[in-house]
C-alpha cells in the first residue's frame, strides 16, 4: 500500500513547489506592465483593449466623419443612381441645383483648380478600377454619398500617412529616401478590394522586456508576416548574432516606425471592427512599395527607388565600414 501512496506524495510535492515558487521568481514575475488579457480573445484584440481612436481635426484640416467609418460594413459598392437625393443630412455647401464646371463641397482637395481636380478624379478611377458612379451621384457630383465619404477619409489618410510617417523617414534616413508619397494606388493597385494577408500583432508586442517566451511567440510569428510581405528574410533588418539586442540597422529602425504606422492607420482611419492594414497592404511583396506617386498635385505613379541601392542589399554596410552616419 505504501507503494501506492508514493505517487500521491510526488503530486503533493509538485503542488507545494508551485505554491512557494513565487519566492524564487525573478523580475520576470512583474507582469504589471502587461494587463491580464481577457479570456476568449485573440492576442490582437487583447492588446487593443482600452485603446481609443485618436483623431486630430486641427491637424488634418477636416474632421473625419465617424459615420463614414461605420458604413464600411454596411454600404460597399457603387452609388445607387436611381435613389432620389435627400439634402436633409447633406452639408450646406451641397447645391440643390448642380452646375458642371464649378466646385462645390470640396473639403479635402482645396488646393485644386477644376482642371487639376478632374485629373485627380481620373487618378482615383485608375487606382481603384472604378468609374465616376462608384462614388458620385452623376446628377449632382457635390452630393455626399457613403462611398464618397469613405474616399474623403481615404484621402485624409494618405495625406496623413505621408505627413506623419513617410516624410519623417525621408528626413531621418536620407540613404533610404524614396521619391514619392503614398497614393491610392500604393495599396489598391487597380482594385477596390485588396488582399488582407500576413497579419501582424500591435506594435507594443515588439517590446520584449517583461515578456514571456509564449508572448514572444506572437511577435516572432508577425516577424515572418513582415518578411513575407516585404519579400525579405530576417537579415534585412536583424543581425542574426542577437535578434533583440543588435537592432541597429536603419531598416530595423524604419520597420519599428512602419509598425507603429500600421497601428496608427488601423486606429485612426479604419472602423473599430476592421484592422485590415498590415505590412502587405502597401508592400505586397516588395521591399519598397512599388507604386508611389509624385508629391503634390501631380499624382503620376512612380517607382520608389533608393538613393543608395548598395545600402539596400546590406543594411549595415555603412556601419561596418566605419562611416559614421
Amino acid at each position: 500500500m505504501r507503494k501506492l501512496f508514493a505517487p500521491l506524495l510526488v503530486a503533493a510535492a509538485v503542488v507545494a513547489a508551485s505554491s512557494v515558487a513565487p519566492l524564487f521568481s525573478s523580475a520576470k514575475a512583474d507582469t504589471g506592465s502587461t494587463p491580464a488579457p481577457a479570456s476568449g480573445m485573440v492576442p490582437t484584440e487583447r492588446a487593443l483593449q482600452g485603446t481609443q481612436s485618436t483623431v486630430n481635426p486641427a491637424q488634418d484640416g477636416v474632421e473625419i466623419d465617424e459615420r463614414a467609418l461605420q458604413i464600411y460594413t454596411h454600404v460597399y459598392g457603387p452609388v445607387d443612381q436611381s435613389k432620389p437625393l435627400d439634402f436633409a443630412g447633406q452639408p450646406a455647401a451641397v447645391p440643390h441645383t448642380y452646375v458642371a464646371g464649378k466646385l462645390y463641397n470640396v473639403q479635402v482637395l482645396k488646393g485644386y483648380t477644376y482642371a487639376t481636380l478632374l485629373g485627380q478624379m481620373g487618378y482615383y478611377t485608375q487606382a481603384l478600377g472604378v468609374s465616376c458612379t462608384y462614388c458620385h451621384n452623376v446628377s449632382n457630383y457635390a452630393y455626399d454619398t457613403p462611398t464618397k465619404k469613405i474616399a474623403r477619409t481615404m484621402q485624409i489618410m494618405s495625406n496623413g500617412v505621408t505627413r506623419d510617417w513617410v516624410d519623417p523617414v525621408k528626413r531621418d534616413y536620407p540613404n533610404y529616401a524614396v521619391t514619392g508619397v503614398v497614393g491610392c494606388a500604393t495599396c489598391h493597385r487597380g482594385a477596390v478590394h485588396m488582399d488582407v494577408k500576413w497579419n501582424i500583432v500591435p506594435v507594443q508586442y515588439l517590446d520584449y522586456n517583461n515578456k514571456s517566451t509564449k508572448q514572444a511567440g506572437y511577435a516572432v510569428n508577425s516577424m515572418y508576416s513582415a518578411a513575407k510581405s516585404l519579400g525579405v528574410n530576417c537579415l534585412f533588418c536583424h543581425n542574426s548574432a542577437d535578434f533583440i539586442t543588435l537592432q541597429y540597422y536603419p531598416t530595423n529602425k524604419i520597420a519599428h516606425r512602419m509598425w507603429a504606422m500600421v497601428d496608427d492607420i488601423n486606429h485612426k482611419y479604419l472602423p473599430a471592427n476592421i484592422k485590415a492594414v498590415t505590412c502587405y497592404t502597401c508592400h505586397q511583396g516588395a521591399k519598397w512599395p512599388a507604386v508611389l506617386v509624385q508629391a503634390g498635385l501631380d499624382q503620376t505613379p512612380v517607382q520608389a527607388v533608393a538613393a543608395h541601392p548598395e545600402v539596400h542589399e546590406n543594411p549595415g554596410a555603412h556601419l561596418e565600414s566605419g562611416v559614421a552616419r
Partner: protein
Amino acid sequence: MATVIARTTLPPIELPAPSPLDDGDLLGIRIGTPIRIPLLAKLGLSTQTGVIWLGTWGVLSTFFFVAGVGVLALAAFQQMNGNLLLAIKYFANIQIAPPEGLGLAPSLQEGGYWQINLTFWALSVLCWAGRCYERLTRYQWRPFLLFAWLAAILLTSTIWVFRPLAMGSWAEAPALGLNSDLDWAQNFSVLWGNLYYDPWHMLAIFFLFGSTMLWGMHGATILATASEGSHMEDAEIKDMHSGSHKSMLFWRWTMGFNANPKTIHDWLWWFSVGTVLSSALGIITTGTVVKDWYVWGVDHGWVSQYGEITRSAINQSSQKPLVGLNRPEEPGVTTPQGGF
C-alpha cells in the same frame, strides 16, 4: 604478413550459425509464453515479443501515461470543435498551451489541460523510474539504467517545470504540440539572445555529436564483426580471436586505442547522459542568471569583435540594452577588444 600469421596459426573458434529463432529461454528463468512474430525473422530481428513483467510501478506508470495521452487527445479534439477531419488536418498545428503566471489555470482551455497533462506526465515518468529501481534492486545490478532515465527526466522537467518555476510563469514552458515545440525552441533562443552563445549549449552539442560518433563507431564495429560471431557477445567475450576481440584489435590498429566491450559502453553512457545534463544546465541558466547570451559572450570575451561594431551596435539598439548578469549599464564600462 600479419594477416597470414593470424589466419594460419590461430583459426577462429567455431560458433553456431546465428539464427533469430535462437533467442529462447537459454537460462530457464522465463515466465509465461512469449508471442512469436515470424515476419521479424526476415528482417534479421528476434521474433519474440513479450513477455512483459508487470509490477505496481509499471501498472501505475502505464495508467498515468494512457490518462495523459487521453487528456491530450481530448484537448486537441475539443480545440477542433470535435471535428475529426480538422484534427487530422491541423494535427501539427494543434497546441495545448500553458497558462500565464504560476498557480492553477483559470480554465481547462487556458492552460488547464496543459497542467493536467503535465501532472500525468510527471507521475508516469517517476513511476517508471520506480520500476527501474525495483528491477535493479531485484537483480542487484548497478544503477546505470535508473540514472540515465533520471537524467532524461531532469532535462524535460527543467524545460517544463523547474525553469518556469524559477521564471515565475508557466508560459515559459513549451506548449504541447508538434509545431509549438519547434516554435518554442526558436522563440526561446531569440528572446534570450541567441542560444548558440550559451556555453552549456556548446557543451551539449559536443556531447550530442560525440554520442552519435561513438554510437556509429560501436554499431558499425559490431555489425562488421558479426561475420565472426561478435553478436554472440556473451558467449565469446572472453575468447581470443573472437569477433569482439578482433573489434578491439581493429581500433587499436586504427587509432592506437581501443575500448573493450565494457568500456565502450562507459563512453556511450557518459556522452549520452552528459548531453542531457549540460542541456539542462543551459536551459535553467537562461533568463534566470543570464538575460542575453550574446551580451554575456561580449562581456566575457567569447564573441569575436569586428572593431568596435559589437559594443557600439548594442549601444545603438533601439531596445533597452540587456547586460549580462542583469547589471545596469555603466557609461564608463569598456569592453576588451579583440576577443580572446
